């Protein structure tokens, strides 16, 4: 095991291009590329060794935020809309993507960056729709970060004026903290998860611009209180837009497509 961050040597992040089969190792997390801030120090002369305090006031995520800004500029230069899709595992992100690509593929140019700890399963499902896709495997990592996305975008090489949908690692906690440079986060929840998710994971619901409530065809079979769920979601984020869909049956998808169309280049 790596002593620095606990990762094992065979679970480093990788990037796979499904079209070419090329696999690239992503070792950004071991880089030490911090900006040099202006620092102040003052001495302490106690008994024992003399020490000096150095004031930093440096944001811990400053490096990620810098790289996210770079991605944002890269995307803006090419007129590309990038959306960061986040949810717990199994909420239906990949199914929603497959359906979206099939329904809108002729109208909007879409490509996909897939994020998972392991396997190419999701990327293979996306590839089967005829869509261009790269897969990032984060190994022990629990979220995508801006450095990973930069490599993913390089490899994907999305056309100008297109849409890039980024499927983050299934996790309602960590991806909320890591800006990738996307235009907006879209959180997907499903009625099989329980109606208190917005209160349990407020950071993610707060960081998102759109909430897609999936699997509404299962509402008659589960004890999910829709009114409670919506109340909780709005308490956490009063500006959150909500659409209710069934990605398998197709209900409500026009609401999502309209939202996407109105932001597409």
């Amino acid at each position, binding site marked *: 095991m790596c*002593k*620095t*961050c*606990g990762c094992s040597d065979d679970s480093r992040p990788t990037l796979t291009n499904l079209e070419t089969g090329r696999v690239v190792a992503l070792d950004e*997390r071991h880089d*030490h590329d*911090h900006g*040099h*801030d202006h*620092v102040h120090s003052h*001495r*302490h002369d106690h008994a024992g*060794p*003399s*020490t*000096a*305090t*150095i*004031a*930093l*006031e*440096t*944001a*811990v*995520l400053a*490096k990620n935020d810098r790289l996210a800004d770079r991605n944002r500029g890269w995307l803006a230069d090419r007129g590309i809309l990038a959306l960061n899709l986040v949810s717990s595992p199994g909420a239906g992100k990949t199914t929603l993507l497959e359906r979206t690509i099939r329904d809108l593929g002729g109208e909007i140019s879409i490509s996909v960056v897939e994020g998972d700890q392991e396997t190419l399963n999701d990327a293979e499902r996306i590839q089967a729709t005829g869509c261009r896709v790269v897969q990032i495997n984060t190994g022990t*990592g*629990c*979220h995508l*970060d801006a450095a990973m996305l930069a490599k993913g975008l390089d490899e994907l090489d999305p056309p100008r004026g297109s849409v890039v949908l980024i499927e983050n690692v299934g996790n309602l*906690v*960590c991806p*909320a*903290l*890591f800006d990738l440079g996307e235009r907006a986060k879209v959180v997907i929840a499903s009625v099989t998860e329980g109606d208190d998710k917005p*209160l349990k994971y*407020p*950071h993610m619901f*707060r960081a998102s611009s759109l909430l897609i409530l999936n699997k509404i065809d299962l509402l008659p079979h589960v004890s999910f209180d829709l009114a409670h769920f919506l109340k909780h979601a*709005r*308490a*956490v*984020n*009063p500006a959150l837009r909500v659409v209710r869909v069934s990605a398998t049956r197709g209900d409500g998808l026009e609401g999502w497509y309209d939202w996407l169309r109105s932001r597409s280049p």
Partner: protein
Amino acid sequence: MHELGIAQEIVSIVVEHAAGARVVRVVLEIGKLAAVLPDAVRFCFDLCAEDTPLEGASLVIIETPGRARCRACGNELTFDRPFGRCPCGETDLEWLAGAELKVKEFEIIDV
């Protein structure tokens, strides 16, 4: 468990600025709304500090509260979670502070 990556980032920021000096204390500021657990950072910090100039350094975490202003009545309130309700009934809040996640300072042995 993003705290592992965060602890690693903290160590590498301090290692770089310490320029080889031995570090005996690191002071962090973690806001109550930062979605980062201080105890988890503490747990990971010692592991990440091993074999670096920070090995054995003490970690001081200053937790700052979440502060918000009610958009309806202008009342300033304190919260320890990223949502809440003003006594006037409004839930639309302008968040002022509490999302901080930074290395404030560190102490080195002066040689």
